[in-house]
């Protein structure tokens, strides 16, 4: 009986990890992450998520270099055709690659890097601000367990190499 204990503990640990990833999958799928981080493509019935590039952020092949010039009237934000680039008063922002690619995604990130980014609204918890439309005020209120689950799910995805460009600041008046 004693010899079974390590195996049971191992199985319990694996089940717990699976539960966490499943919880993360649920949160990602119900919290709108794919709305910005999965590019849209034009399908037979209009724009649809390009699942081959799921959660890989703004496609590097879709080059946009400058924010849209502010226009008179009621409009504030312009969204690129892929739904992954946003131009507004903050300048030009691009949805990040959330897959675990080592060079271009979250591959090198630790769980703490991810938590601190969402908690503080700063890249890696200490860099540039995370820009709109990322709903930091909403997600920063998630529990640590939920954020860890989201990160575990993202780390379980197949890595997609896609170098998302740096954001662009608005032109100085």
């Amino acid at each position, binding site marked *: 009986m004693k010899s079974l204990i390590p195996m049971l503990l191992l199985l319990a640990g694996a089940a717990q990890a699976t539960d966490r990833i499943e919880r993360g999958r649920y949160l990602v799928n119900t919290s709108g992450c794919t709305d910005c981080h999965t590019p849209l493509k034009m399908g037979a019935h209009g724009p649809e998520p390009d699942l081959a590039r799921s959660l890989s952020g703004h496609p590097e092949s879709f080059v946009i270099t400058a924010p849209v010039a502010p226009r008179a009237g009621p409009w504030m934000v312009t969204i690129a055709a892929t739904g992954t680039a946003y131009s507004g008063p903050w*300048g030009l922002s691009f949805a990040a690659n959330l897959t675990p690619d080592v060079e271009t995604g979250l591959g*090198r990130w630790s769980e703490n890097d991810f938590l*601190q980014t969402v908690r503080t609204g*700063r890249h890696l918890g*200490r*860099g*540039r601000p995370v820009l709109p439309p990322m709903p930091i005020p909403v997600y920063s209120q998630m529990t640590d367990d939920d954020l860890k689950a989201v990160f575990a799910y993202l780390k379980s995805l197949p890595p997609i190499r896609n170098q998302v460009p740096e954001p662009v600041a608005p032109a100085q008046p």
Partner: protein
Amino acid sequence: MHRLALLLLFLLAAPAGAALPERLSETGLGGPDVRAFEPRFALWSDGAAKRRWIALPPGAQVDASRPDAWRFPAGTRLWKEFSVDGRPVETRHFVLGDDGRWEFASYVWQGDDAIRAPARGQVLALPGGRRYDVPSTGDCMACHAGARSPVLGFAALQLGPAVPALMREGLLKGAPVSWATRAPDFIAASHVEHLARGYLHANCGHCHFDGGVPVPLRLALDVGARPVLVDGAAVLRRAGTRNPYQQMPPLGTREIDAQGLALLAHHFNQEHRP
């Protein structure tokens, strides 16, 4: 189970971090245990002049057994004063509580005393139309909390020649014995490299170290070691912009350090040209 109950009791009984006072004059700055110190490699703060002080609890020592990540005793207090055009504007203060957590506060000077700034930070308008950013508590933690040691300036490489005196005074424990007679330093191939890599250590090393931000750019230095070779072009590009989304450091500065940038350019473009 018994141990778990004891741990829970301990956690419940542990005092929360004491709130820092509303006025700088109530923090103990100027007291008998307070000593001034100055790091030899400066953090660029848009030209502000700075003065720094530390106070250790009586009889307490700094644990220097990890030469590049000193650990401080509970009750350690630090202050850093920022002056612009000869007038003090802000004094930052942080304290290590009994619970092992650092508390941060900024005080804005008004007449003879400084008043605690809001935790969210604030922007001050200085004479001549200059803006001055008082950091939020979160901004303080962004630089200090994730570093090898949260105390950035009172450290082996930053104090350098001042370390032997601290050793003789008995202020450090666990430090290499050689520090009593020889100041800790890193190995540089030239005086310019010493200055340039020291500059990067002071301005970037608190995030860019092994175990810091997951970026392959190691700018922190280690006692007794040579600096790791880095992508000088990337360093110059980031240090040479104040585009808020690309600049480095990402906070605490609105203006490029022209002198520092020239030093880095001299080092990377002339000394380390591939």
